[in-house]
């Protein structure tokens, strides 16, 4: 009797379920019954469900708008891409980006290092060129000065005045080659000390006991002979040459110690 009632109850719920006619509560109840259903009941459910599906054929077919399919296929492809490709591509792009960044960083550091080396090399080369240029300029200046001095020596009519060291510097030596015609002279000094700070040597031409300044000069390398050109020295007469140590820039009259003296 109870089995019969259960069967009737199952059949009622099953028929209503496949027709979509159960309340939410009854639906839950039927689903629980279905879980415990025997083979015969399950077959009944499948048959009724199939019949309900067949009843759908009684509806008129209607064409939906084309956009539905388009949206569905787009959704499906998006889903596929996001499940597989997109993530992998994203990951790959990420890995590529990291790899590219590392490579870029290494290349950048390499280039930076190379640039720094090149800059250093360039600086060294520039310093070397400047140094060589300075030497060249010094040598050119020296050659030019020597040529000027040689010009004086080449003059046919010159006076030679030798100067000797005095008490403050007995080993001192000096020589004046004077080209009176052109108003210029060559001064050679040796063995006189390096000038102290704020001091310079001054050459005097003494005529009739009156000292006339012939110019100032400094000796920075006492170990070698030093040559100086005296320009615009338009003087006449016969006298003597003397060298004194004076304040830097020279004095109107001799004030310091006399280092060299020589007469014509």
């Amino acid at each position, binding site marked *: 009797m109870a089995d019969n009632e259960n069967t009737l109850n199952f059949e009622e719920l099953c028929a209503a379920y496949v027709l979509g*006619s159960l309340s939410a509560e009854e639906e839950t109840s039927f689903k629980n019954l279905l879980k415990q259903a025997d083979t015969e009941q399950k077959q009944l459910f499948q048959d009724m469900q199939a*019949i309900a599906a067949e*009843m759908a054929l009684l*509806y008129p*077919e209607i064409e*939906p*708008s084309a956009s539905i399919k388009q949206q*569905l296929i787009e959704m*499906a492809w998006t889903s596929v891409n996001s499940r597989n490709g997109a993530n992998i591509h994203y990951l790959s792009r990420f890995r590529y980006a990291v790899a590219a960044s590392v490579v870029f960083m290494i290349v950048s550091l390499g280039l930076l290092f190379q640039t720094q080396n090149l800059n250093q090399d360039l600086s060294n080369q520039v310093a070397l060129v400047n140094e060589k240029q300075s030497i060249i300029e010094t040598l050119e200046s020296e050659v030019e000065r020597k040529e000027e001095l040689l010009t004086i020596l080449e003059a046919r009519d010159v006076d030679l005045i030798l100067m000797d060291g005095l008490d403050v510097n007995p080993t001192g030596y000096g020589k004046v080659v004077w080209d009176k015609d052109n108003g210029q002279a060559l001064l050679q000094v040796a063995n006189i000390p390096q000038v102290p700070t704020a001091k310079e040597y001054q050459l005097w031409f003494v005529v009739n006991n009156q000292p006339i300044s012939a110019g100032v000069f400094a000796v920075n390398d006492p170990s070698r002979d030093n040559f100086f050109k005296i320009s615009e020295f338009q003087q006449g007469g016969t006298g003597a040459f003397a060298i004194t140590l004076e304040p830097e820039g020279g004095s109107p009259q001799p004030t310091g110690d006399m280092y060299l003296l020589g007469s014509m």
Partner: protein
Amino acid sequence: MLFFILSAIGKFLTQNNSRDRDLMRRIASKEPEALSLLYDHYNRLLFGLLKSILKKSEEAEDILQEVFTTIWEKADQFDTERGTAYTWIVSLTRNKAIDRLRSKVYKEQKKQSTSLDDDDVFHPLYSEENNPLENTILSDRAKRVYQALEKLSEKQRAVIQVAYFDGLSQSEISNEYDIPLGTVKTRMRDGMLKLRELLSQEMA
């Protein structure tokens, strides 16, 4: 002739079931092309079903899209042991339509009764866009269902009709047509068992 038709229907059902099962397997493997093919096979039928239940095209299209989205997402849950893909898809479609029908918005609307004699409802499934043989067989299937329904008592048919075509619950049918709830349940049960008996040979 009858033998030929039944044979053709049986062959067609088997082929369709095999085709649908293969499509469902491919959809479960996330092949958009398979979803596209399945949509081509069933979109008009399901949209007709939805339009008849929901009345509004926009709502019907909305649910149609939801149905195929669910198929895409849950194809792997389809169990071939529990019936055909066609049954699964139609059940899914009807359940979604009824859920929408019983939502707050639809509850406000007056239920429209549907007559079994209504031409709009029982319009045969002829469509020029379909395969002629398929249309013929589909229409034959529809005729078989129609003829089986015709063999029910008028009271049984009426209860099944309003439940299926209008989406009314048993309680709603009872209230709407002033029939005791128990009687509604009995008529529905007896009607469906009778249909099973009438259609069981072809459904097997």
